[in-house]
């Protein structure tokens, strides 16, 4: 069967096991334009980068030519088998893909309902899903002849992944990180330094992720000739939301194949945490047209959704607005001034969300929930104690909702958690929450 026919049959309905094994055989097909049905939910964005009313290219004129040349370079790379082969080789031998789909037996027994699987992105090199996207972008930067890489980071996972890839390819790496996050994620700052990256603490504004992104954009505006901006989440001006999604779709494609291998069918539901939303869109996207698969994104409710400026749930507590190059849901005051947001997890602490999630919320295809700091901490401890896996606080938010929902489902309900990162970086934060432990 040729590639096009295989893809078409795959889109037509529940795939056969032979189709399910596709990602391991033929590399990352998502990057090549798949043949989609006319009513497919996987067609976005349009030529202008819009998902419904969301997305777009809201950037200063200085950046516009760069955004357009990036879009062109990405389109060319997508069509180049050599690019795919190089990326696939790195994902296999450097990242360690595919990441396992693990049956969480004791969690399943404990909750007494759905059969729970973890998609173990925390086992990737550098300990999170971020590396999937970074390698795709760094290979693109090399194709474009860019020698200087800049990135923003919140929890530090994207910064570490970028620093890692830059070390691997001998590229200069500058990571912008809010001064507040530098303090609360010290181990990751140290890792980035070890990898040869320069970490710049951002002192402007609220000194967290949004300000790190502002500062990275300022750097880019200033160093247009030689610099590539490696954005860490599926947000920002077009083509970033689509490009980052494409790189992260390996998560959902593998999950799909692995679930077929393990259970002979599609999962019934998938859960992922959402800050900007890159791991969630990567897990969800390959299932968007499988309407039987329930999809749940879990935002950070911080101190609670009713606490003003006390959460980071842009969809639940925000409104559509324009920031960082795209229209999406934002946390803001009645005047349109951006709020800082709060979450115990530095990786979710962002006042916006990827534009495709904003659109998926409006279409109703994905159900967006939230979990508080306290609920995430409880899930964090439960996961460590029952499964011997210390999750990052980010996916602990998604696990918190699984803890509620799994018991309400029958035992043959197949439920997947996108376990997007490991929790080593959060030990000090969790210790702090236990009361002054060093």
């Amino acid at each position, binding site marked *: 069967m040729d590639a096009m026919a295989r893809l078409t049959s795959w889109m037509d309905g529940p795939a056969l096991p032979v189709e399910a094994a596709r990602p391991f055989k033929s590399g990352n097909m998502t990057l090549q334009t798949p043949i989609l049905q006319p009513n497919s939910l996987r067609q976005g964005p349009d030529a202008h980068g819009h998902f419904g009313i969301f997305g777009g290219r*809201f950037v200063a004129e200085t950046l516009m030519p760069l955004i357009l040349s990036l879009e062109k370079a990405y389109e060319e790379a997508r069509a180049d088998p050599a690019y795919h082969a190089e990326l696939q080789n790195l994902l296999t031998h450097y990242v360690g893909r595919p990441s396992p789909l693990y049956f969480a037996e004791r969690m399943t027994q404990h909750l007494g309902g759905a059969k729970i699987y973890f998609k173990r992105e925390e086992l990737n090199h550098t300990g999170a899903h971020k590396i999937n996207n970074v390698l795709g972008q760094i290979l693109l930067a090399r194709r474009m002849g860019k020698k200087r890489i800049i990135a923003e980071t919140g929890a530090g996972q994207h910064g570490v992944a970028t620093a890692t890839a830059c070390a691997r390819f001998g590229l200069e790496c500058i990571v912008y990180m809010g001064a507040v996050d530098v303090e609360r994620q010290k181990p990751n700052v140290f890792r980035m330094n070890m990898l040869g990256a320069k970490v710049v603490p951002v002192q402007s504004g609220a000194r967290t992720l949004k300000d790190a992104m502002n500062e990275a954009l300022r750097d880019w505006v200033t160093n247009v000739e030689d610099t590539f901006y490696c954005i860490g989440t599926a947000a920002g001006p077009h083509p970033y939301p689509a490009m980052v999604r494409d790189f992260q779709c390996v998560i959902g494609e593998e999950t799909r194949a692995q679930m077929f291998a393990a259970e002979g069918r599609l999962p019934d539901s998938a859960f992922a945490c959402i800050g900007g939303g890159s791991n969630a869109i990567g897990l969800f996207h390959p299932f968007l047209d499988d309407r039987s698969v329930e999809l749940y994104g879990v935002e950070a409710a911080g101190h609670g959704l009713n606490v003003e400026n006390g959460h980071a749930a842009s969809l639940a507590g925000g409104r559509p607005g324009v920031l960082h190059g795209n229209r999406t849901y934002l946390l803001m005051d009645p005047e349109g001034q*951006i709020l800082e947001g709060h979450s115990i997890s530095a990786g979710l602490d962002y006042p916006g969300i990827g534009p495709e999630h904003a659109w998926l919320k409006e279409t109703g295809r994905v159900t967006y929930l939230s979990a508080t700091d306290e609920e995430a901490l409880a899930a964090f401890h439960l996961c460590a104690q029952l499964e011997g896996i210390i999750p990052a606080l980010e996916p602990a938010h998604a696990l918190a909702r699984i803890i509620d929902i799994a018991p309400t489902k029958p035992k043959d309900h197949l439920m997947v958690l996108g376990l997007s990162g490991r929790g080593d970086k959060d030990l000090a934060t969790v210790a702090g929450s236990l009361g002054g432990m060093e």
Partner: protein
Amino acid sequence: MSRIDRRFAQLRDKRRAALVTFVMAGDPDPATSRALLKALPQAGADLIEIGMPFTDPMADGPAIQAAGLRALRAGMTLHGVLHLVAQFRESDAHTPIVLMGYYNPIYVYGVEKFLVDAKAAGADGLIVVDLPPEEDAELCLPALRAGLSFIRLATPTTDEARLPAVLANTSGFVYYVSIAGITGAGRPDYSRVAEAVARIKAHTPLPVAVGFGVKDASAAAIIAAHADGVVVGSALIDALAGTLDGEGRGGEAAVKAVSALVRELASGVAGAAKNSATGEKVSA
């Protein structure tokens, strides 16, 4: 003819460039800001750009970022900005006012309502940094329909192929950003500024004002010899910030300091006019 067109036409007759001054609305407080706006034309400002404060000004350097946050802390809102414009118009019917900022506060205010209110307050044009021509349907086209100029930024990265798209719906004047970078940073290469202005003028009859990196009278004079306008922002904000007391309060000292710098810049621009009139361009 709009106030902006009329002002540039008058200055063209006088053979001198316009001095375009930028201040942040409500910085450091509404009362100082009101007094400052009133003082600017007397000190020699030909056009005034008024910043609409925003928490996340991605294209601005530290000086303007800080000014925006001071204004927001002192309670400035988009309604407040328009109120300042209306108050300014009570005593000045001729100096063009251009509102400059980012899209989100306008989007949240409501585009149509904003355009009606801005026009009624006496604003003449808009510069919205994060709306490139690709997003013209958002605000640019509605603004033109509402009778407000939409002034576009052209930058060193705007190449020949892109210039026509950038200029297509631009009105009032073209704002050439002389360096690829944020406001207040660096110093432009003046020889390239002359070249860039000529390149833009080959595509449009609109006046071209040049900004970014203009800090003193001599820089203003050099730019004024080559362009139809000189935009000064961060240097004025720095002058204002230097007068604030420990609590960040403004007052008469702030108005005096900014006015003094504007007078100096205006003399630089006027001096350039003479050179320009005799055909001797000041070169870098």
